[in-house]
């Protein structure tokens, strides 16, 4: 019975840079990726995929494939019928949203290149793939709609039976909502006596590109059908399987073992999972399907893909008066799990940290014959942040003001929190002044501005630009009532339970499902602190619906702020249950029992018991209070009361070679306020990784389709994931204003870097060449696009946006990448 005072070595776990518990296995190759799983007699699948973006399937000849050695069967939609189930959309953003039926494998018509038309089952993966080559599918090509703007004009239809490409129109208007004024009136007024900035930005299509290709194993031989899948969402997956296949939920067990990254890309229920489930049940054999990288790039969902038309009004002194957002968002060929909800998540974020008196958000979701889109790190919020941060810098340029000064003039001051925004959210805490001051100092803002001026004055070939992003985001998805108001199909709570073992160890079960975030470590720190047990004595269990029976999984920067809070509530219940036991064993009144640092003691005495001793006593159950259950185990389901609002100031310095268009990042500084930090080491990793994904959107990545609707960036040769040689080391710091909507005072961090960085990077390039007449360069800002933007402006040619040429010939019709290039 050690007193805390006797243990000067004990320091709080929260805030400590613990090395991760997860790593020992991962650095030695002792891993449990889904593709590692091999079961006796296991069969393998290979998919036959459509090479056409839009075509009628006229015939499928499977005879030759079926005759191949070790092929067990070849199946088409006609063979499987309703047993294949259907894929769901969990968020119909409007009552009248149009959505085609989404079969895992359609029978009559394919609507994007990569859609599955037949599936081969064989004894080995290689034999399955060989046989897939022998399946002969006849298609009758149909006109495909590939260009987002043309799709919105309904000239060619992605799904002719719907009669339109328009799926849903979603609107928020501050006057109608009673949260602000009339935006059109504000803009009209500014046209006469203020300033109006109008821009159109392209959010190119991206691919999440998690490193572990998706894989699914289904074992139908037990009483429960077990599915292992490389997924972020084992619980949602189980629910959706049960809801669409007729198999009772209680007969399905889903396990997400080690999962190699997700970034939203594994926040999905997939055709491949459904077909593996269906065929394993049909054949009564275990089956594995693992995709190739090329399949992953073409058939796993994509992200972003919007046109953003933005109108910002302000007074001549820089005070903003209104913001109007008109989005076109590409759903691809289906409304996927979250689907049109992704751009809608941006609806509340375009106004960002600024005090707009009037705001309107309009979003039209549109079908095309391309891979379906869904969440990718940030999901709606990077797009919004990009739009507003670019616009604020444009306004500053128009008024010849410093962009920091302009932001400061308009942002919410720290003493104004809590602040209800024009989009109707209540921001609980924040201090934009503090984060910005720290970032400016770390960056050496004044010195870099001086160097920029010097280079401009000297007409240097290499110009310097500074990009700024003073972002916020909403994270911790999500208060269930808010989701209900938005017509989302589920809640946003999270579940946790804490089991006190007889040996003094603690098992923690969470409904969050980590895939690289380090939950085992961070959650252990929280529990160790709350219960006063050793960090090493806490085991975190997750990702298996038979162990963690209840949960809503991991996405939307929710695991700590929602799942961690559920954990706090469960540990608090353990302590409450242990108190009467402690009182009973210590022969004291419950009112005299105090709990501190893992020990229950009697006030004013040196008598006490450690929580582990109480757990052992409860296990033995020889002596416990009358009327009490002999158990300390507790669970909690926590429904968040609000989102939370991390923020930060990101500054990027970029050198631009005006003769070649090449860009070179010189410095990147960010100061993020994510509230209290549980583990600074894990936070730094989240920030670094997030930054590079956002930077990659600005500079390198784009899913490019040709005029036939083929994804030409369909391998890692063409889809430019950044390498270590492309990137730099970052200067990251934090300021702290604890959130007041959760016990731990934390805010989410998983998406922050990605949300913040993109506009800072593009802004820095534009800033470097603005004096040459450039005010926009389309992402990704390739040297070619940068060079053409400079040339276009230099020649006094078309507007800069028109000069922001992508890779391909702008006269070539239907090339996605050239959208707007000639507009």
């Amino acid at each position, binding site marked *: 019975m050690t007193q805390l005072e006797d243990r000067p070595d004990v320091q709080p776990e929260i805030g400590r840079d613990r090395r991760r518990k997860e790593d020992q296995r991962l650095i030695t190759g002792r*891993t449990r990726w889904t593709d590692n799983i091999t079961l006796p007699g296991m069969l393998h699948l290979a998919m036959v995929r459509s090479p056409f973006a839009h075509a009628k399937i006229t015939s499928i000849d499977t005879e030759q494939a079926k005759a191949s050695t070790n092929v067990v069967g070849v199946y088409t939609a006609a063979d499987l019928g309703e047993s294949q189930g259907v894929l769901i959309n969990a968020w119909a953003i409007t009552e009248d949203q149009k959505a085609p039926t989404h079969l895992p494998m359609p029978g009559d018509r394919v609507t994007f290149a990569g859609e599955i038309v037949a599936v081969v089952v064989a004894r080995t993966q290689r034999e399955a793939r060989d046989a897939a080559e022998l399946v002969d599918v006849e298609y009758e090509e149909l006109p495909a709609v590939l260009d987002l703007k043309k799709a919105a004009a309904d000239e060619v239809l992605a799904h002719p039976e719907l009669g339109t490409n328009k799926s849903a129109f979603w609107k928020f208007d501050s006057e109608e909502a009673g949260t602000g004024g009339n935006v059109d009136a504000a803009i009209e007024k500014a046209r006469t006596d203020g300033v109006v900035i109008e821009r159109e930005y392209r959010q190119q299509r991206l691919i999440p590109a998690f490193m572990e290709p998706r894989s699914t194993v289904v074992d139908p031989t037990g009483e429960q059908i077990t599915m292992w899948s490389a997924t972020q969402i084992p619980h949602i997956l189980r629910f959706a399987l049960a809801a669409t296949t007729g198999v009772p939920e209680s007969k399905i067990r889903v396990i997400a073992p080690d999962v190699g990254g997700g970034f939203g890309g594994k926040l999905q229920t997939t055709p491949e999972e459904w077909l593996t489930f269906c065929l394993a049940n049909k054949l009564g054999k275990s089956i594995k399907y693992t995709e190739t990288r090329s399949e992953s790039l073409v058939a796993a969902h994509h992200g972003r893909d919007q046109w953003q038309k933005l109108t910002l009004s302000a007074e001549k002194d820089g005070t903003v008066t209104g913001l109007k957002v008109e989005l076109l968002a590409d759903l691809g060929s289906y409304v996927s799990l979250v689907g049109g909800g992704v751009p809608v998540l941006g609806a509340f974020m375009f106004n960002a940290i600024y005090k707009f008196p009037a705001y309107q958000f309009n979003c039209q979701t549109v079908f095309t014959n391309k891979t379906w889109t869904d969440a990718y790190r940030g999901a709606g919020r990077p797009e919004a942040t990009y739009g507003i941060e670019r616009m604020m810098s444009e306004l500053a340029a128009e008024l010849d003001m410093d962009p920091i000064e302009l932001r400061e003039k308009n942002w919410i001051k720290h003493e104004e929190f809590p602040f209800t925004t024009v989009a109707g959210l209540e921001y609980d805490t924040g201090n934009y002044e503090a984060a910005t001051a720290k970032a400016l100092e770390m960056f050496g803002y004044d010195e870099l501005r001086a160097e920029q001026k010097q280079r401009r004055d000297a007409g240097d070939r290499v110009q310097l630009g500074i990009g700024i992003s003073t972002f916020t985001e909403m994270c911790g998805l999500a208060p269930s009532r808010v989701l209900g108001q938005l017509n989302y199909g589920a809640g946003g709570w999270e579940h946790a339970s804490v089991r006190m073992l007889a040996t003094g160890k603690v098992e923690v079960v969470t409904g969050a499902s980590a895939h690289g975030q380090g939950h085992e470590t961070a959650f252990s720190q929280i529990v160790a602190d709350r219960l006063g047990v050793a960090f090493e004595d806490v085991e975190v269990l997750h990702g298996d619906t038979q162990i963690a029976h209840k949960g809503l999984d991991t996405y939307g920067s929710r695991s700590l702020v929602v799942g961690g809070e559920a954990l706090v509530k469960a540990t608090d219940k353990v302590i409450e249950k242990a108190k009467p036991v402690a009182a009973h064993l210590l022969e004291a009144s419950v009112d005299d029992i105090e709990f501190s640092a893992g020990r229950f003691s009697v006030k004013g005495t040196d008598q006490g018991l450690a929580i582990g001793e109480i757990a052992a006593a409860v296990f033995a159950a020889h002596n416990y209070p009358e009327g009490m259950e002999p158990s300390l185990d507790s669970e909690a389901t926590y429904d968040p009361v609000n989102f939370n609002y991390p923020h930060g100031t990101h500054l990027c310095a970029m050198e631009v070679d005006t003769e070649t268009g090449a860009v070179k990042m010189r410095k990147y500084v960010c100061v993020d306020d994510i509230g209290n930090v549980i583990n600074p080491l894990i936070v730094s990793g989240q920030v670094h990784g997030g930054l590079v994904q956002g930077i990659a959107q600005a500079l390198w990545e784009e899913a490019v389709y040709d005029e036939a609707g083929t994804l030409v960036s369909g391998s890692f040769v063409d889809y430019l994931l950044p*390498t*270590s040689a492309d*990137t730099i080391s970052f200067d990251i710091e934090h300021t702290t204003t604890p959130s007041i909507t959760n016990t731990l005072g934390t805010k989410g961090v998983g998406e922050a870097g990605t949300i913040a960085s993109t506009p800072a990077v593009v802004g820095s390039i534009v800033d470097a060449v603005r004096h040459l007449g450039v005010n926009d360069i389309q992402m990704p800002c390739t040297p070619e696009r940068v060079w053409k933007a400079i040339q276009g402006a230099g020649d006094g040619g078309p507007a800069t946006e028109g000069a922001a040429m992508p890779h391909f010939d702008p006269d070539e019709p239907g090339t996605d990448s050239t959208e707007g290039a000639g507009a």
Partner: protein
Amino acid sequence: MTKITMMVDGAKVADDVEPRTLLVQYLREQLGKTGTVVGCDTSNCGACTVHMNGTSVKSCNVLAVQADGAEVTTIEGLAKDGELHPVQEAFRDCHGLQCGYCTPGMIMQSVALLQENPKPSESEIREGLEGNLCRCTGYHNIVKAVQQAAGQSEGVNA
């Protein structure tokens, strides 16, 4: 089928393989060395990197028959007698991994990099790891881990 023999992580193994079998397939499927993983199909990602006769190779880019008679070390054979290799230790200490999928290849490449250049500069590290993709870390802490393993820094100790 072709008969091959090799030393893998210190053990002598012999098998009959289809001539088209890739080294990574042989390691994973026949030897059960699932620590080595496949991340792409174009030899871009480097997740499958192992050492063959002392130098790093992408095992998706080598036929198993080409490794006949070779000495192969995978991530599973790097720690000796329960002692982590200094590069493994540095990756953990510097938080040079998150999901861990690229990690086996990244560590094997880092070991090879340091064998060739024991005191690399930051840019030499970045160039040397260019053939290995990571989607989680942004490379920042991976570079720090290699620096630490090279004895050049204390990593990211806060």
